């Protein structure tokens, strides 16, 4: 088992015919992901083929059609920033319950509106500006290099793409596999938060332990820490990037007022430590720390 995606997940790729979409769809197909449809407005009726001619995927004008014709139940989005918010809402409107948006550089207000629109609809969206989500050896919905992941029982949630790879790779090198790895993305308005991801892992019987990777800014890690303190028995290994980041050259006071002293790496690490997490000083310690945590609990 795993969370959110598995070998039965049927994926529609929005923006399949674009450069990034084509490149990464092929990598996903190579990994074994079931990509059943593509959507590019105006290119409906086309059959997409990868550059080696290994795969053929039907392209539709709308997500609604794609869902009707192929039974797609998850969407992977590669459309350019100006159209990405629209693409997310189109997928949601077509009944897709899991949406992963890779696109980087979407206007913040667009995502504020998406969040507002999808509130209470039961749609789970991940990203934007994220590497995606992977259940190793079953389904890769994203741009991560598949070969660094290994099937297993540790869940990873991270704001940073490359730090996700760093953590997964260290675990894999130590023979520790992953149940599901979720890259929630680095934008200020993420579809899925650390807390929500931790909750999913906590409720997943096939996840034994959790790696949480955060960074400075916002209060997602503090919120996750609160949840962990109250609800999580599984070992949590955490790393927060940005201890040495200088305070940005700012202009107004609003940032300082709103954060109220929270949001820096030290306060996040403190909150997680207090919640019982194993907190790493550098990302190079994540693998080692997890091995230690699993051994301490007799899980390895």
């Amino acid at each position, binding site marked *: 088992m795993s969370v959110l995606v598995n070998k039965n997940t049927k994926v529609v790729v929005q923006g399949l015919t674009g450069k*990034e979409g084509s490149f*990464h769809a092929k990598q996903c197909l190579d990994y074994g992901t079931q990509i059943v449809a593509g959507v590019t407005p105006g290119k409906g009726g086309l059959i997409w083929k990868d550059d080696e001619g290994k795969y053929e995927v039907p392209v539709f004008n709308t997500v609604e059609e794609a869902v009707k014709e192929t039974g797609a139940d998850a969407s992977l989005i590669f459309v350019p*920033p*100006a159209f990405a918010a629209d693409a997310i809402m189109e997928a949601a409107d077509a009944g897709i319950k899991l949406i992963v948006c890779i696109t*980087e*550089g*979407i*206007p*913040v*207000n*667009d*995502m*504020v*509106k998406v*969040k*507002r629109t999808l509130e209470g609809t039961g749609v789970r969206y991940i990203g934007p500006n994220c*590497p995606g989500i992977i259940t190793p050896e079953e389904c890769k919905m994203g*741009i*991560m*290099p598949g070969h*660094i992941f290994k099937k297993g029982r540790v869940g990873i949630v991270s*704001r*940073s*793409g*490359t*730090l996700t*790879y*760093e953590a997964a*790779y260290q675990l894999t090198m130590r023979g520790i596999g992953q149940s599901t790895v979720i890259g929630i993305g*680095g934008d*200020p*308005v993420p579809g899925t938060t650390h807390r929500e991801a931790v909750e999913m892992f906590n409720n997943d019987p096939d996840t034994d332990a959790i790696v949480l*990777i955060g*960074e*400075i*800014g*916002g*209060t*997602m890690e503090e919120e996750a820490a609160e949840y962990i303190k109250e609800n999580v028995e599984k070992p949590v290994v955490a*790393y927060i*990037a*940005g*201890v*040495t*980041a*200088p305070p940005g*050259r*700012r*202009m*107004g*006071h*609003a940032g*300082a*007022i*709103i954060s*109220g002293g929270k949001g820096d790496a030290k306060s996040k690490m403190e909150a997680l430590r207090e919640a019982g997490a194993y907190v790493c*000083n*550098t*990302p*190079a310690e994540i693998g080692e720390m997890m091995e230690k945590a699993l051994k301490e609990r007799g899980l390895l």
Partner: protein
Amino acid sequence: MKIHEYQAKEIFKKYGLPVPRGIVAHNAHEAECAAKELGTPVVVVKAQVHAGGRGKAGGVKLAKSPEEAGKIAAEMIGNRLKTYQNPEGLPINCVLIEEGVNIDKEFYVGLTLDREVSRPVFMVSAAGGMEIEEIAKTNPELIIKEHVDPAIGLLPYQARKIAFKIGLTDRKLVSQFAKILMTLSKMYFDLDASLIEINPLVKTKEDNFICLDAKIDFDDNALYRHPDIQELEDTTQIDPLELEAKKWDLNYVRLDGNIGCMVNGAGLAMATMDTIKFYGGEPANFLDVGGTATVERVAAAFRLLLSDPKVKAIFVNIFGGIVRCDRIAGGIIEAAKQVELDRPLIVRLEGTNVELGRKMLEESGLNIIPAKDMADGAQKAVEAAKGEL
């Protein structure tokens, strides 16, 4: 993107918000003429830089005559203003000469994204002015917060609620104040602002509200739909190296250390800095080459690092996902051909196409110190910067 106070006030004016009369001056003579033209007994000379806290730093001064205004302007223009929000200081190229306003009370109004709830939030206080950050720390209850529903904007009852909460009672003042808040909410969404701040919003002795200060930050991701705002950019307020980086779409921040870093992904870039520091070194910069680095961009990033004379060693830390290692390797080789590679270069590559990338570097004939992982690379970079490698 940041703009100057005088530019923000022009936008305020277009939206019908009350601002003092003011004229921009680029030298003492212009300042003197501006003060004469305004004709008020007192004018205020305000340094135009992309930072707050100017008042405390001597960047906002009263002048009781046009001659005095000219003298103050002469002292300011051409110098740098160092404020606590920008300790390195920013060049003052012009000043805003503004009519002196009879201040009865200073309020604070800020509107920005509250990441905790993913909605913009108004923060308003009757204790506005230059000490607002202190007040937010010691008396947070004096800051009134109200979230804005992005689907409908601020509602009139919310604006009134804020007005009453900060102690306004007079009907005319309440309605004036509420109107200002409603306008700010509209402006925030219209212009894709990431911050609008009025500190202070002043109640005058004549019982009117007027915006004495104006700060607007814009969401860089949304600038493509606001070409008129893009034109307001003043590049003299940006670090030249950071400006060069921006041209190449590189995310770069200059720091004080001597180890140049080139990393893909903001998170890994911060983590690399943390790791360097953990092993006793000092990073010279934050540099994220991003998710879609081309050979040209990586080469540009490399030139940027080498152009900083403080840099004693360079640590390239790449975990290839969307950026494939062969592309990174290609960029390093390309850049090394263009720039004389006179400092130790430590490279750690991992991820997609890593074998190809490593092979390319090995066969390039360049003097590259390979690292097996991030910690190893950071340690080697620290040693190299000390001249011990």
